[in-house]
């Protein structure tokens, strides 16, 4: 675990250590951004606890370098339960679709493949009915990842319940 500290820049490298952010109540806002993620990070886990919005638009995760990237993703998320189906996503990593009444729990794990290419896996489920979501996605960033955004596909639905946190390592 090569811990490197700088008097001016703080932690330069802490590879191998899990660092948890502070859980954020997802009870307002159309998106929640976690910024200033250190450059040495190679894996980010986004944690959803009973997260809900006031609309039916799919919940997505976006990543970025300097600013959030809103296009160019490749991936699919599928649901399974009483029926099955799925959607492809190009504007983010699909976390879950559904109704305003749904509360989502689970994780989205985003790993550095190399050369600023990030690959994600998704595993979430609803509390209101027997549906689970599985997915995968990838995105090549133009630079080092420094932010993660949790939002919806339409960008205008508002979070109204639950909490979200990230782990980075």
């Amino acid at each position: 675990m090569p811990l490197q500290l700088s008097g001016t820049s703080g932690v330069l490298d802490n590879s191998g250590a899990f660092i948890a952010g502070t859980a954020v109540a997802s009870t307002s806002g159309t998106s929640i951004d976690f910024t200033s993620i250190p450059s040495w990070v190679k894996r980010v886990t986004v944690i959803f606890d009973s997260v809900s919005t006031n609309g039916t638009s799919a919940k997505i995760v976006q990543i970025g370098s300097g600013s959030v990237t809103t296009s160019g993703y490749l991936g699919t998320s599928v649901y399974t339960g009483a029926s099955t189906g799925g959607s492809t996503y190009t504007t983010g990593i699909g976390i879950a679709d559904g109704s305003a009444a749904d509360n989502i729990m689970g994780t989205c794990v985003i790993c550095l493949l190399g050369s600023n290419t990030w690959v994600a896996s998704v595993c979430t489920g609803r509390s209101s009915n027997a549906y689970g979501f599985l997915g995968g996605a990838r995105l090549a960033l133009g630079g080092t990842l420094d932010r993660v955004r949790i939002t919806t596909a339409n960008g205008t639905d508002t979070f109204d319940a639950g909490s979200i946190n990230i782990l980075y390592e």
Partner: protein
Amino acid sequence: MNRIEIDVITGKREVIELTAQEVAQAQTQYAEWLALQPTKEEQIAKLQAQIDALNT
């Protein structure tokens, strides 16, 4: 509409009002996503195929 921004190093939390440009970008993003979604007819056909499979 606003977004919540959390700096993971400092823990500072800010609420930022979306600009008109950001709202427009969200609408463009949504149109792109919608265009990829199956039509109602396609979804019904898929569900019917699943029902048929259960009955065989």
